[in-house]
């Protein structure tokens, strides 16, 4: 991949926590994500997936190496990234609509326009909520929603300001299997409609293969990229597809790679 068509570009990125002899979370990670691409990062737990997210969004500086997003070096928090986590982190004192609209109160130019064009923005938020199946729940407080519905609202909050980059850190990990699969479909539809660049951290390989254009497999700590898989299955993908042999083959293959990465990581833990 040439430097020009990469939207996110990590070049030899390492990260140590604490002092120089502290835990090494990432070791010389090279990674590129094209604009509009859906990239998943998978790996054994504690391999630095979440650290990678913090680095790309500029919330934490790398110990060494360079990170570029949209052609510019990342030196501080990026200004308009959408983010969602395993915990929906909705604000309990705001209703669903107002939670969704939170980024509009912060990101320019919406911030300056919000008061005068409130009606248009409310319509925008209602439309987005409707697209994830939350019509009629705009005025409900977060605690009145189920876990899956809260996560839908959290996705809407991450997308309301139309970010070029969406960062998702195990967003569906705490949901039951059926709800999770339902939300894969919701996320795929949103992505197909809006074509944002997406970095998706997960440890669920079916999830990664269903959603992604490309999967990066990381090793145990310190995290390195040990394999890259392009998933060229046609879109939109159906849940049915996840049970076909070619899909199962991909998942199985990645699973073995991670098992290997885990066993290679183990001696380090003993030492």
């Amino acid at each position, binding site marked *: 991949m040439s430097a020009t068509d990469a939207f996110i570009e990590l070049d030899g990125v390492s990260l140590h926590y604490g002092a120089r002899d502290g835990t090494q979370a990432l070791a010389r990670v090279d990674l590129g994500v094209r604009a509009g691409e859906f990239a998943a990062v998978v790996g054994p737990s504690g391999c630095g997936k979440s650290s990678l997210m913090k680095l790309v969004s500029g919330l934490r500086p790398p110990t060494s190496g360079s990170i570029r997003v949209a052609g510019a070096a990342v030196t501080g928090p990026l200004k308009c*990234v959408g983010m969602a986590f395993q915990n929906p982190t909705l604000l309990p004192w705001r209703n669903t609509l107002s939670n969704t609209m939170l980024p509009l109160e912060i990101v320019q130019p919406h911030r300056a326009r919000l008061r005068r064009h409130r009606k248009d923005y409310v319509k925008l938020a209602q439309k987005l909520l409707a697209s994830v199946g939350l019509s009629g729940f705009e005025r409900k407080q977060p605690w009145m929603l189920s876990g899956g519905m809260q996560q839908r609202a959290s996705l809407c909050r991450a997308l309301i300001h139309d970010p070029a980059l969406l960062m998702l850190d195990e967003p569906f990990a705490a949901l039951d299997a059926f709800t999770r699969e339902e939300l894969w479909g919701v996320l795929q539809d949103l992505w197909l409609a809006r074509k944002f660049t997406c970095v998706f951290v997960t440890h669920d390989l079916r999830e990664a293969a269903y959603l992604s254009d490309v999967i990066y497999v990381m090793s145990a700590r310190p995290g390195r990229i040990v394999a890259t898989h392009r998933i060229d299955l046609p879109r939109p993908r159906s849940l049915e597809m996840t049970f076909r042999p070619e899909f199962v083959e991909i998942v199985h293959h990645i699973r073995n790679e991670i098992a290997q990465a885990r066993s290679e990581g183990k001696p380090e833990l003993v030492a």
Partner: protein
Amino acid sequence: MSARRLREAVMPWLVIGGLLLLWQVVVQIFHVRPFILPAPTVVWTTFLEYRQPIMDNALFTLVNTLSGFAIGIVVGVLLGIVIGSSRLAYAGLYPLLVGINSVPKAAIVPILVLWMGIGPAPAIATAFLLSFFPIAVNVATGLATVEPELEDVLRSLGATRFDILRKVGLPRTMPFFFASLKVAVTLAFVGAVISETIASNDGIGYLMMQSASQFRVPLMFAGLMVIAAMGIATYVIFALIERRVTGWATRRNDTHFGGG
């Protein structure tokens, strides 16, 4: 109102009434003399007899208490914001605050009198000194416990520290803040009355010292009752405001939707 809510509303009155009744019965059965423990009926007649001076002094105490309390809110909230938003400020200021709060306030009153003279000033200052600490600690706790993920969401939108404070930190802190107000306002009464007993010519504290020196125990108890009533009243006012402002924190779980 449902039967359960009605019972909840009546309960505090029943408890207070029952306690007064018990008190009355004990005093009458054991013939306790009024200068040891006056019966509630005696306290009540004394209150009616002296209601003008009692209410004048109570008003004086109330004004001192609320003045000190108001200053306590302003200083407590500002200190809490500083301590809660900066680890450095937390490390630097917290031990000092704990130290200040550990000093018995009764011991400070003479110093305050030396600086401010006798009258409302030391009472207001003592009320302030007792009330700002719980407010500062609670506001700081609320701010320091904002979920890091939520902070990440906002920072990656380009939010400033002030944005995060305004949109997340302060609203989140409201339940902590109101909880501390209910504690602080009762402490403010304690502060004002302590100061008045030592250095004042007005106020319930002064009234009680005077009546104690003359063994007019029923009058002392009448003063005590008025203080207690004012304490409960201010507590109830803040509890009502709290319920309006932070209803989200004490939600009822009876409205819940299922489904994915």
